[in-house]
């Protein structure tokens, strides 16, 4: 048991937990924007898959990480516009259109991967970036300040998105549209425009989440790389009560579970890998049971808005 309490292993797990929280945070914060405006985007996993592939492929071809991330963002924006067209303009049942978007993204990423790449290949991803002085703090430096750029970006996104949602006019409009679109409309807020923006901005973040997965976590692409991570990210929004800090807490919970999975053998935990793989999904269900009745969702969540009917 001594090995379990070895400080190297504890630091290893915590470092991995911070790193692995990145895709969850990007995807969940993006979903929080969409949901705060009243649109559930269940296609996050599909957007992440396309973003992950595009970023991977651009990096493979050009070796330019900036272009890779921009490509993933572009893919996210396009898919967000598609989702908005179907769910906002055409007022589709959001649960189903999101699944359609997921299937589309899943298929498209597999199609492109098989046609353009074919076999699993590694690429050079983001390198760890030591933050001067802070990286030298014992223990904490290694855990927090020797991570790669997307990791810092994800954690910076928490205060930024809190500021946008809580302190700016745009944030207020997004919330108003998600709470009472008819009232917002009567005050001159263009409900459709705000929802288009929120869904598309959120999808762009989902694209980045995908890129962070393929270029900062595993440095490769394979079919169904996300393995449902995008759906867990949607659940995290409920778990976090639509607040960025709550979402970060949820993301860290899941990333810690993932980190434990990585270190299971080192820790000598004798759990079949199939059972270990079930854990995040089981925890998601338990978490949903625990929080669903306690949090208040945006009142107009999942409800298309039609001016003609109000």
């Amino acid at each position, binding site marked *: 048991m001594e090995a379990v309490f070895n400080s190297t292993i504890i630091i290893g797990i915590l470092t991995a937990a911070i790193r692995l929280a990145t895709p969850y945070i990007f995807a969940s914060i993006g979903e929080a924007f969409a949901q705060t405006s009243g649109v559930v985007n269940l296609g996050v996993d599909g957007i992440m898959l396309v973003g992950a592939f595009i970023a991977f492929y651009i990096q493979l071809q050009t070796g330019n990480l900036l272009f890779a991330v921009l490509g993933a963002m572009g893919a996210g924006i396009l898919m967000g516009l598609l989702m908005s067209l179907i769910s906002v303009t055409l007022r589709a049942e959001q649960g189903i*259109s999101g699944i359609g978007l997921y299937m589309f993204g899943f298929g498209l990423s597999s199609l492109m991967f098989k046609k353009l790449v074919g076999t699993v290949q590694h690429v050079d991803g983001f390198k760890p970036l030591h933050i001067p002085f802070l990286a030298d703090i014992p223990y904490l430096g290694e855990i927090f300040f020797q991570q790669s750029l997307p990791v810092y970006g994800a954690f910076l996104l928490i205060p930024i998105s809190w500021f946008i949602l809580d302190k700016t006019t745009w944030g207020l409009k997004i919330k108003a549209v998600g709470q009472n679109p008819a009232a917002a409309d009567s005050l001159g807020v263009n409900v459709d425009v705000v929802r288009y923006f929120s869904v598309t901005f959120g999808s762009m973040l989902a694209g980045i989440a995908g890129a962070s997965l393929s270029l900062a976590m595993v440095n490769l692409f394979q079919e169904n790389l996300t393995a449902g991570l995008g759906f867990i990210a949607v659940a995290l929004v409920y778990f976090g009560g639509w607040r960025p800090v709550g979402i970060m807490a949820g993301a860290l919970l899941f990333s810690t579970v993932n980190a434990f999975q990585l270190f299971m053998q080192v820790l000598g935990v004798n759990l079949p890998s199939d059972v270990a793989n079930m854990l995040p999904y089981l925890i998601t269900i338990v978490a949903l049971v625990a929080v669903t009745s306690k949090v208040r969702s945006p009142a107009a969540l999942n409800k298309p808005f039609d001016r003609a009917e109000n």
Partner: protein
Amino acid sequence: MKTPEMKEKELTGKPPISWDQVLVQISLPILAMILALLISGILLVFLDVEPIEAYKSIFTGAFGEKAGIIQSLVKATPLLLVGLGITIAFRASVINIGGEGQIILGALGATSWALYFREWPSWLLVPTTLIASFITGAFWGFIPGFLKAKFKVNEILSTVMLNAIALQLMNLLVRGPLMDPEGITSGMFLAQSEKLPTTAWLPRLVPQSLLNAGAIIAVVLAILVYIFLWRTTIGFRIRAVGLNPHASRYAGINVPFYQALSLTLAGGFAGVAGAVEVMGVHHRLLEGITGGYGFSGIVAALFGGLHPVGLIPASYLFGSLLVGADKMQRATQVPSALIQVLLGLVVLFVVGSSYLSKKISLKSIFRNKKKEIEVQ
């Protein structure tokens, strides 16, 4: 989306057939399919593939020869079964994404039952195995149904999570207690179960093909589901809950109960689909048993207008698309993942068009009103 008049008529159980409405209902999915083909075609051009060639290859693969048509029926069978469950759930406005997991549980149930009671005669073993698969699949649908009814847990998220859990469960069992003993003695350790006793096989309908009695079972169940949804009180309540949960609550219908029931039934039908794959096609449980039918079944159900009568041709159509895509992959090296792209786009455009169909039907109502006024 339906107008209040239509809702009322549907609730009274005597839907008068309005032919222009039927025309809209049929033509919109077809338009959605054409649009999906167009957009996939554009994507194919970007991937340096001739879209016309790819589509031609799908079409000839699916409809060009007898073997393709029979194989399409084989693939249509699980689509129809899963689609029936999806139809019941969606009619209660419960979105069941858990088809994959429910198929797995049904397949696990069928395999375990048939192997455990392998001494039983065929006339007893086949029906009880099917029932076992219905129950295990229904159990996997009951969990999200119960969580939704009791704790208001979003069923889309819980069913997605249960899919992942079921997959791991199958991996665990098929590499453990259910693993083929022959594979262990020969040292192959394939992730598959022992072969079922022949007494548990569903009879093959066409020699030298995989088409089996499961197809007949599926069609019979489709008719039963139609009767259930439109001719029984429980079915009426399920549809009422879906059309207007608030009104149903005021009418004294226990909304959460009927939503949970519809999810449980949906799981049962998907479970039977898993059993048919095991008992009729592969004769054992192996990895990839779901064939993605849990998702493509959703597409078939939506395309079929969430109605058993529409679902039968829709299942055949998507079954043949899946067969055609496999043929295309072999003939032209275009990955069959293309079909997933198409399925996703079809879902998007079909749900997107429901708003348009509402607009169109409103327009025709206004037109009729105008006529009435003119007559006066």
